[in-house]
């Protein structure tokens, strides 16, 4: 059963085609790694799928339900989560950052606390609970952003170079997590240059060249 299908997705900038995808189909539980040179359109594609940017043309279908981008529907926002290439952290607290999406979904306090706690220990953020989030290092912000997305258990998870600014330990741990995502049946698209991610078993590979998918 296909979870996500997009067709005839086009995004241009003046004369330049940033993205031109005839069809992209993702099965439920499938994990893809999205590769391609700098500027090939990886972030552009993920941002469109997440509803942060809109394409110039294109149609989509999620879990059998058609959708478009004007506007990108709220029900879909609750199922799809995107993590920036350079994540932004809210200037509140580490815990509030992790709890943000759960609050937006109206998850009751007790359950919220439990899930936040779980995400914090997964991302090894406990020793940073009292730090102002804006002062965290690049890799710590990355881990916080991953925890903030992971805690939501989205149907579709879009990760933009999640291992780029991580140290060896955090990288290994994140890759381990990507494996658990796949095992748990989370559908994910991961833009990545990281060999170890690309070579994860059961990873489908999408290669972008100038905004077009060439290997599939």
């Amino acid at each position: 059963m296909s979870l996500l299908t997009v067709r005839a997705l086009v995004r241009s900038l003046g004369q330049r085609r940033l993205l031109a995808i005839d069809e992209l189909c993702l099965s439920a539980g499938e994990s893809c790694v999205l590769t391609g040179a700098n500027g090939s359109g990886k972030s552009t594609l993920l941002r469109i799928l997440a509803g942060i940017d809109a394409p110039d043309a294109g149609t989509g279908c999620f879990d059998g339900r058609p959708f478009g981008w004007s506007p990108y529907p709220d029900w879909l926002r609750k199922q799809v989560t995107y993590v920036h290439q350079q994540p932004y952290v809210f200037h509140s607290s580490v815990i509030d950052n992790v709890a943000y999406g759960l609050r937006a979904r109206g998850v009751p306090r007790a359950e919220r606390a439990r899930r936040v706690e779980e995400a914090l220990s997964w991302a090894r953020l406990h020793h940073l609970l009292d730090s102002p989030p804006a002062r965290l290092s690049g890799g710590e912000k990355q881990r916080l952003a991953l925890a903030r997305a992971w805690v939501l258990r989205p149907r579709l998870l879009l990760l933009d170079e999640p291992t780029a600014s991580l140290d060896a330990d955090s990288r290994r741990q994140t890759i381990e997590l990507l494996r658990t995502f796949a095992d748990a049946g989370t559908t994910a698209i991961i833009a990545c240059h990281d060999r170890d991610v690309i070579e994860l078993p059961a990873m489908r590979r999408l290669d972008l060249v100038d905004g077009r998918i060439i290997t599939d």
Partner: protein
Amino acid sequence: MTLWDATLAALLLLVSGDRELWGIVGVSLSVTLRAMLVATPLGIAAGYLLATVAFPGRRLLIVLTQGLLASPTVVVGLILYLLLSRQGVFGELQLLFTQTAMIIGQVLIALPVLIAFSLSAIQGADPRARETAQALGASAPRIAWTLLLEVRFALMAAVCSAFGRIVSEIGCALMVGGNIAGVTRNMPTAIALETSKGDFAQGIALGIVLLLVALGINSAFAFFQGEARR
């Protein structure tokens, strides 16, 4: 009475808790606080809409707001006077020479400051703040609230700036308030009118209080602006 004697008398008035003097301070602060209570949510909401919603005439409104930033308060007072006077459109309401009229005037003077400052605060926010809130599934009101929280220090600076402008303005307060003792006589109007009648001590005492208020509010402004830049 020499200046020295007047200053001593002023200090005496301040420390002895002079009824009339502190009453005037009370009118000033209460009118300005109530004006801020009305103007702040309106100004921030308008600034947010101008910063985030595209609609025809938006650019014009932004330019207009910036133009009104330095509007002479006495002209605002004049216009309000004409509207509220017995022959005016709102003459029926009999608001002229009341605190309500002063509050309306101060709201009008504060609004452009609040709108312009919050507009630039929100425009200056990192675009990823909105994108992250969106990506985590926040609804439009929650996104708005999140963004306002992210720029809270810049917004507090806006509030201080507006407060500073209206607490010390005299033109409008005089026009629509009328300097009525115990009712609409506030610090600036009392200083301007009572001093010329020979009440130097009270003028100096009020001047000291007003100066301290302005100093406090400007320090707060500087603090919040510093925090906002971090």
